[in-house]
């Protein structure tokens, strides 16, 4: 390899970006999920209140946690397919 140090610092940058994304998304998922659990644990009356007929606020938030898991997963796949994969191609060549 002609410039091993340069390649090393490039890898470091790609690695740092990958982990920033991972930590950001992991933290978001945890905040959403444990926010929901804390409401279940500490504010049962709020979650029991009807949002519309047949749907309590608790059930709505529960569905939204599942939707949040989907959205965050999709965000990661989109990011990785475009940015991360492109950086890896750059490192390989």
């Amino acid at each position, binding site marked *: 390899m002609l410039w091993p140090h340069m390649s*090393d610092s490039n*890898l*470091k940058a*790609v*690695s740092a970006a*990958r*982990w920033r*994304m*991972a930590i950001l*998304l*992991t933290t978001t*998922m*945890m905040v959403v*999920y*444990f926010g*929901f*659990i*804390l409401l*279940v*644990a*500490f504010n*049962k*009356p709020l*979650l*029991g209140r*009807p949002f*519309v*007929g*047949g*749907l*309590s606020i*608790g*059930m709505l938030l*529960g*569905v939204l*946690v*599942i939707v949040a*898991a*989907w959205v*965050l*997963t*999709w965000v*990661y*796949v989109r990011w*990785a*397919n475009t940015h991360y*994969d492109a950086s*890896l191609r750059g*490192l*390989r060549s």
Partner: protein
Amino acid sequence: MTSAIGEPNVTAIAFFGLFIVLSLGITVWASRRTRTADHFYAAGRSVTAFQNGLALAGDYMSAASFLGIAGLVALSGFDGLIYSIGFLVGWPIVMFLIAEPLRNLGRYTFADVVATRLRQTPIRIAAAIGALAVIAFYLIAQMVGAGNLIRLLFGLPYEAAVVIVGVVMLAYVLFGGMIATTWVQIVKAVLLLGGATLLAGLVLSRFNFNPLALFAQASATYGPSVLAPGRQVTDPIDAISLGLALMLGTAGLPHILMRFYTVPDAKTARTSVGYATAVIGFFYLLTFILGFGAMVIVGREAITKVDAGGNMAAPLLAEAVGGTPFLGFIAAVAFATILAVVAGLTLSGAATLSHDLWVNVIRGAHASEREQFLVARVATIVLAIISIVLGITFKGQNVAYMVGLAFAIAASANFPALVLSIFWKRLTTAGAQASMITGTVSTLALIYFSPTIQLDILKHAEAWFPLRNPGIVTIPLSFVVAIGVSLLKPVEAEERRFAELERQLHLGVD
């Protein structure tokens, strides 16, 4: 309402027979393609992203989540949903932190990753203890569940059901290895998703395809409290502790982690988790409909009359909306579900015994292809016998807590060491080893002193440890032990190898 549950059911036996014939056909086909250890453990790394997504979902959606959660929702409403949600939120974590690094760093087991830049023997032994503990408790829960369910559904004796599950599963794994196990998971996932979707559709057709009308009816019949958090969540700390174990435990289940080695590269692993998350989320949304549907259409009294735990809610619902033939179909799907999950667990246990312990510890990584393959198959037979014996030994015992225990061990023993080995360059052999052993031992000890064992099972007056789920103590403890031990006695050579690991983690081996 009289139910055909528990009587030998012609459609159930026909559908189940069909599944067995199909899955054994797959096994015969797979056995011709299973010639090396790479085929046996990792399906020749030729599984596509969509196939692996379905197989991951198949491995993960156990009978506990299909029958157990539907029953829980039917009997306690909203509280059951907490489990549905908890079982899904681990998947994004698998995606963000684990899937791609695992694929690039390991070959067959998660211990490969932890051991990448550390000393093989101590890491492999400690990881094997954690992995085998998870697999053992998960297996016991599945085998006992299989015996009870099949007795309830088909009227077969408990022991016969356990032996049938053990023998059929042995055939899949022994002859067809990962190729057969993957395809059995895919067929099972499609059947389970199809069956649950059809059942939910039949339920909703009675409510103008409006789920809210169904929930409103549940609330009108059993009071608005069914749509609100209730008695299941009494202790906030316990609720958070359970949530932690479910979320982080998913990323430490050996049979799930092993699936990432069956795909050709990290990008495929990534895409497959995307499919798995979509499919599993959809399935858990269906459990909302199935649970409330059973509550309204079958009725709580009729459900508890058949099984006090509510496990028969979904089959009873199938009978109510689709008659005996549909009951038979759903019963067969439940049986297939158990078989597939047990096969996945056994294969990952065999990989731990043969790849981690025999090949890498006892033989010092010098074993011929022929020997590796042979040892893997011997380990499979041993595990099948053990699982049948455990299933019969635990007959009639309360094993519902064991799935939670398996998740707690996975989250405390496997997850911290795995994540730190990928992320943290100063992790040492001693740190990882101490963390994995602490995670396993502390979880087992705290479960033993918890109200679950002390009050419910041993009928003692009080429990020394107040929580039913130890995760909130044991997961941070494992992290602290790993970090503390590593910092106390740094190993420079191991830290230096992190640069190499980092390159392989992102770029793979080629």
